[in-house]
């Protein structure tokens, strides 16, 4: 499986700090599930996936401490995996995760700038670092 295009679209469409935090939280969670699904020791991306999974969990947790994060998931969160994306290759999944992490970096940077709450700003900064790590790990996977 790969991070779903719907997650990416939700993140792109999110408006306002709580919505960005909420969808970013879900995006990290989706990336975590996606890279975990491909952690095959025989695969060439094993090391990158293992490290990216840890960074995805760290990014999700960082946003969990943001004061403006809604206490519950928003109603439009996709339920379960997108069956159309299951069965894709590890390389495709890595590329999708890298793309999503780049979008995360951009949206979280916006959120950090827009927030006046130091807790939100710190959470966004921490999560951006995690997204950067994921991008560094998986961004060159096609090479």
């Amino acid at each position, binding site marked *: 499986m790969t991070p779903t295009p719907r997650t990416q679209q939700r993140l792109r469409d999110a408006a306002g700090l709580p919505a960005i935090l909420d969808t970013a939280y879900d995006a990290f969670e989706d990336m975590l599930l996606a890279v*975990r699904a491909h952690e095959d020791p025989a695969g060439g*991306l*094993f*090391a990158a996936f*293992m490290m990216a999974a840890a960074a995805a969990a760290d990014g999700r*947790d960082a946003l969990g*401490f943001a004061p403006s994060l809604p*206490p519950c998931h928003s109603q439009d969160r996709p339920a379960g995996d997108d069956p159309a994306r299951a069965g894709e290759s590890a390389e495709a999944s890595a590329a999708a995760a890298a793309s999503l992490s780049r979008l995360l970096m951009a949206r979280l940077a916006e959120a950090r700038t827009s927030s006046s709450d130091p807790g939100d700003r710190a959470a966004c900064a921490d999560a951006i*670092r995690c997204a950067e790590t994921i991008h560094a790990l998986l961004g060159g996977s096609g090479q």
Partner: protein
Amino acid sequence: MSSRPVFGDFLDAARGHLGTAARLRRTAGREVDIQQVNRSLLRLVAVMHRYVQDATPGSVPGPPRGRRMLTGWARARAESREALSNAMGFLTEPDTARPQPPAAAGELAGHLDAVSAALAGGRDLLSTHLGTDPRGERELRSEWALTVTSPAVGRAVLAEMRSLARHIAPLGAGLALAPGPTGTAEARQNLNAACQWLWILNSSVNAAQRREPLRTADLELLRAIPASALPPRRLPAPAESVAGLCQGVISSAERLRHLSWASGRQPAWSPGLTVNSLRRIAATSTLTSHHCEILLRSLAARAPGNVPAGHTAGLLHAAEAAGHTRQDWIGVAHALDRVTTDTRLYLSPDADESADLALWTGRLAYANPDWALTSGPAHQPRPPGTLVPTPAGARLVVAAVHHACDTLTSLGYAQREQIRAAGAAQRILVTTRSLPGKIDIPHPFAPALPGRIQSMISACEQTGHSAEQATAHIANIAAAIRAPSRVLTAAREAANPSHSSQPSPDHTAHAHGAAESQPFAGEDPELPGPAERTLHDLGITSPELLQRGATIDRAGDQLIIDAAFGLGPSRIRPSASTLSRSADTATLVNHALASGDPRAAALLYSPRSAEPEPPQAEP
């Protein structure tokens, strides 16, 4: 193994200086001042006494009457302490209660001082692993501390002290009885009497070794104990050689073991305990386990000619166990996905170092000289032929994998303890966002339920166990090919005697050969007896005649020892110094004591020496 100084470095330095002093003794003339030698020997014996004190459990010696109840090594420790204490008594000048004389001017005494300095340095090295807490109790300061304080290392220390005493005694007694050196009769008698007590130490430890042989592995372990200072952090250079990569793996594994030990001891409230560190360690340890599996399979492919026949299967078993360890680490990583901690995004030093170990092992395992954790797909394992070109190369690679797996074991159990402590302090949290929407919890996180924490503890326990299994398989290979990492096995067994294997005949140090794997250069500690020496003085070289002389000397020894032993403890007898007042008598007594017969101690024990030894303050 690494760039850190080890105890053996200091021991070798001491032996080297002692060997030089012994050679100088043979040609000693008027330039040698016996009083100066006595002062230097006092310093040396005082250091040895401190070693034996360190190796003695508890700090209060039992009375000699209680000592009769002791057996084996415990008795040897008590007798060695008393022997060294008595030797110090003879060497201490009456007017100076705690003398601090200037450094010796003579060459021979100077070498004795150098022996003292080297031994003191070695003791300081061992002490770096221990400290004292604010309540004055002994505190462990490194992962080596339990090994340093173990009975096995204590026995090895005693064996080394015996080896030193066995070489110092003929040196000192030879000077005391030789006509050349300058000195008063009293100074000579005191020097000789002190050396006689060193022979007693030799006999006592010898008797213990006969009863309960020392393992060669324990002597090697003592020599291999490093200073607790960490080797410097290093990352692989481009195109690092296989040997360089192996050394890098070993050094990183040593650093990580220490850092992990330190992390495992931090209190539950420590802000340094974060889920991020735990996750990083789980992820990188998964990779290290995977790399170990690759390396072990490559080793198995190159086993013929590099590893003794029959060990190929062992390598494959080890590879399989490393694979299990990898899967178990993945399980730990998955468990950590679902929790967090109240402090975040701090990476502990062991988390950083565990990434280094994954990088070092990856560089060794893969053909790509620039392999990194971010490397893309299609990296091939290093061809076995380039990994292990020679048997020596196999030893180094096995040592590297052995160190890595041993460290993975430490990490697994350290994570277990950290999670247990953090869980008990309610610092392991779960998000409330994942709960159904109708459950209204105003906080984003809540303490994890005990069942979840217990399952994480179990996962870490299982991981530690798997890594331990892999380590055990590799330890067998390391022992078979005499890889330098074999001391790890001895260290684990010493720190946890319940894991000890029974010593096999091949692995016990022979009573006379123990602690003398590094011989003293050119010095034979055996004294010729009076008959044999007279034959030498006559220029006799016939082996048959010399052998007859030695036989007569041994018979004389036995006569004297039997007679002294038969006197019984209550019989009043002359003191040791009285007995050695005449040079001729001293020669005979010395030779009897040098025989190593523990009953020869009866020659020296007098009612005075049966009193408890006075307490010795640390200088």
